[in-house]
Structures are given as structure tokens and as C-alpha cells.
């Protein structure tokens, strides 16, 4: 791994963002829409429930974390698409750049964009709706790290699909968080799900995050084994996604797909 080459990939993305507000605005607009929507929803739920339950850390906090996961995934995918749209793979992969360095550059970009979004969400949700991230305690660290790693893994799997099937497969990437959310219990406990959905939830790291967040809000202690297990599972997903990407890249070199990327006809 060469740090200069990783920096070059990151620098290209910084140049792109610096050169166009249309790339910066989406980093904040959608998450702010979610914060406003779910912020008022939780305020309304707080006003009508008789049990005295506080929905702000329960629902708004969960939405914030799920948005963080989505931003991580989309940050990586969008950086990849910048090269896809400009047909830049030929230029990049004809240099000494390795796939590991390229992915690391995309991950660095994703760290930068997702943390910017996370800070904006925390400040907004805290100042307007009184959400305190500190109320989750030390569990917050493994929870965010799990969501970050899983976002990276799903992002890498998504771009692998696009590398293999061409730019038209882009539509497969964007709905991924929406497809996963019913299984991981962002809004409800996993116990309400049918058995087969609970079985799927067990292999998805965010399930452990949201179950623990709910437990903490209800005054119970976090399940440390579950949290760290989820983190380990996320790391496993990253390793698996990287392996799949490397295999598909080798396939692309064998079939000439990299050199002819964009044709969509290579099968």
C-alpha cells in the first residue's frame, strides 16, 4: 500500500467537491430532511404517548445512525461513480495504482463525507430536538464503528456489481439501505419480525446496534458480546467484500472489461 497513491484518489474527490456545489449540497440535504421529518415525528409521538417514553433517542437517534450508515455506503459508491461516469478506469489502472490503494482512497473519501454529515446531523438534532448522543454511553463507539464498517462493506459490494455488470447496474446500489432496513430493526425490535426475518437479521451487523440502542434507551445494560460480535461481523463483511471485488477485478482484467469499461456488452 502506497499512501501517496491513496492520497491521489482522495485528492481527486476533494477537487471534484471543491469545484462544484452540486456535489457538496447532497451530502447534507437528505440527512437534514430526515432529521426534520423524524424530529417532528418524535416530538408528536412524545406528546401523544401516555407511558412517558422519550422517542427522541429511540427513533431520531436510530434514524441518525441509519443515515450515517447510508452516507458511508453512498460516499464510497459516489466516489467510484465519478470514475465510472468519466470512464477513468483505463487511466487509473494503467498507473502503478493497486486495487487495494484505489479502494482505500474511496474509503478515505467516504470517511471524510460521512463524518461531515454525521457532525451536521448531531449538531442539528441536538440543538433543535434535544438529542444527546452521550445518552448512549460507551456503546456508541462500537455502534458507530459497526455501522461504518458495514457501510464500507455494502459500498464495496455495490461497486463490485457495477464493475461486473456495467454502469447500468447503478440502480442496484442506491436502494440497498432501504432493502436492508426492514431486517435490521431500525424502527422496531427484532422480536416483532417473523422467524425467517429474524434469522436474516442475525447475519446483519446493524441488527446488534439497534437492539442495543433500544436496550440502553429503556434503561437496560448493553449486550457487550452482541455489540462486539456485530463489530466483528462487520469486519468480516469488509474482508468478504474486498475479496469479491478483487476476484471481479481479476475477471475484468481477463475479459478486457477494464479496458472497454462502459460498453455494458461484455459478459
Amino acid at each position, binding site marked *: 500500500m*502506497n499512501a*501517496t*497513491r491513496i*492520497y*491521489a484518489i482522495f*485528492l*481527486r474527490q476533494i*477537487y*471534484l467537491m471543491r*469545484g*462544484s456545489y452540486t456535489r457538496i449540497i447532497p451530502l447534507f440535504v437528505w440527512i437534514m430532511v430526515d432529521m426534520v421529518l423524524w424530529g417532528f415525528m418524535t416530538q408528536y409521538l412524545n406528546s401523544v404517548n401516555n407511558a412517558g417514553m422519550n422517542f427522541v433517542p429511540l427513533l431520531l437517534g436510530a434514524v441518525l445512525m441509519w443515515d450515517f450508515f447510508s452516507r458511508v455506503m453512498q460516499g464510497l459508491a459516489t466516489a467510484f461513480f*465519478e*470514475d465510472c461516469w*468519466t*470512464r*477513468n478506469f*483505463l*487511466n*487509473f*489502472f*494503467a*498507473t*502503478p*495504482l*493497486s486495487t487495494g490503494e484505489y479502494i482505500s482512497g474511496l474509503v478515505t473519501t467516504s470517511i471524510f463525507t460521512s463524518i461531515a454529515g454525521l457532525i451536521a446531523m448531531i449538531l442539528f438534532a441536538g440543538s433543535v430536538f434535544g438529542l444527546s448522543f452521550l445518552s448512549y454511553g460507551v456503546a456508541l463507539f462500537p455502534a458507530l464503528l459497526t455501522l461504518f464498517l458495514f457501510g464500507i462493506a455494502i459500498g464495496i459490494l455495490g461497486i463490485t456489481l457495477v464493475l461486473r455488470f456495467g454502469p447500468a447496474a447503478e440502480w442496484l446500489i442506491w436502494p440497498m439501505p432501504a432493502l436492508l432496513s426492514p431486517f435490521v430493526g431500525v424502527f422496531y425490535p427484532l422480536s416483532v419480525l417473523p422467524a425467517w426475518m429474524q434469522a436474516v437479521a442475525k447475519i446483519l451487523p446493524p441488527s446488534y446496534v439497534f437492539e442495543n440502542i433500544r436496550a440502553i434507551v429503556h434503561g437496560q445494560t448493553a449486550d457487550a458480546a452482541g455489540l462486539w460480535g456485530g463489530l466483528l461481523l462487520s469486519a468480516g463483511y469488509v474482508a468478504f467484500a474486498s475479496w469479491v471485488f478483487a476476484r471481479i477485478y*481479476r475477471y475484468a*482484467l*481477463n*475479459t*478486457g472489461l*477494464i*479496458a472497454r469499461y462502459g460498453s455494458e456488452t461484455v459478459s
Partner: protein
Amino acid sequence: MTILSVQNLSKNYGLKRTVENVSFEVRQNEIVGLLGPNGAGKTTTINMILGLVTPTSGEIFINGDNSTKTRAKTISQTNFAAVYSPLPGNLTVTQNLRVFGLLYGVKNLKSRIDELLKEYDLEIFHDTKCGVLSSGEQTRVSLAKAMLNQPPLLLLDEPTASLDPASARDVRTRIKQFASGGTSSVLWTSHNMHEVAEVCDRVLFMSKGKILLSGNPKTLPQEHGKSSLEELFIAVAREPLTLEGQKMEAHA
């Protein structure tokens, strides 16, 4: 001294043989033309040298190093420019040169970029996005990028295809200077036979994935009973089997 050595290189896509048992060398300070009709296998050969396509069989050595085994090292000694691969249009000229300079590990990058902007008459475009440049200007940016690391092996795939005659002559002069000074060599594909005759020290004619002829572009046509390189090119494109037969007879 041999800069590039290609040994028994083949590439199959399924049952289709795109490149078949190709061997050649490019020596220091030499400009070698890789010629042939569309679909002859020239670009596939260049892509294999650049590591963008995995060969089915055969080996590539750059400055003595096997490119499959030491990719980062060997590729850092190459660079390329191709008419079909412009630099990203959404970055400025300087931004593109900086990103690629970092990827190639160029020392004193800022001063190298300044030199190239001057050499390729790009100073006034330094802050202009590449996508709004004319095709000729984009070609000059691609060539500037190809010279960033002063590569021992420069691969050029139809570098003058979109240039007007005056600009094309300028580019040819620069590349000849580049190859004659220092320790560099060039592998060049072009469909402009006058250009090839002017620039190349040696040419390789490819057709249907094989190298059929090689030699000095100034004497090769006469050796095969043709009046010009263009006539020879047409003969290779239309009657590759005849020329292959001649080649085998010559070997016998």
C-alpha cells in the same frame, strides 16, 4: 539495451484469438510503430503491456523485470496516451496532472507540472477543466500526463488522431526529441503511414493477432514489392495470408 521485451504473448477471448504468439522488443532510444488494420490486436497488445488485460500466455519484461510479478515497479516505468482515453473532463489541467503525478510518484511534482505546461503550450489552460478543451488541446494534456514521470517506455495509441497537421507535426517533433534524449523508448500505433515513416525507427505489422512483418519503414515497402508504406499496409490488411506465406518462405 532492451527496454521492452514481449515474449510469445497471446490473448484469447473465449474461442476468439485476439493476439497470437507475439514476440518483439523495443530498445532504448527507439521508436517502434505497431501497425495494422482495425481489430489486428494492437490495442490489446498495448493493454497487456499496461496490465489492463491479463495475457492468456506469454511474458512481458520492462527493463528486465517481469511485469506480472512486479507490476507496480514495471508500470511506474511506463506511461501512455491514447485518443480513446482522455483525462477526466471534470478536473482542471493542473489538477489532473497533480493527481496522475502523485499516482506515478513524480518527484518535485509542482516544478515538473510547470515545465510540462510550458512545453505543451498549456499555461493559459492550467485552470481550465479538461472537458471544455478542444480535442487537440485535450491530446496535448494527455501527452503532458504521459511525460510526467519521464517514462523509459512510452506507449502511444494513435496520439495524433485528433490533431490538425501543424499540431501533429509539433507532437511528432516532441516525441522524437523525447526518444532520442535520455533513456526512453516509444511504442506507437498510428494509421497515418506518412507519420510512421517519418517518426519510427522500426515498424511491426500486425494482422489478425499476429506480427506478419517487421523492419525499417523506409526500406520495408520495397523489400515486399510495394511503392509505399501505405500500399504495404493495405496489402497486410487485405492479404495477410500471402504475407504470412512470404514470411514463412523467408524463414525457410
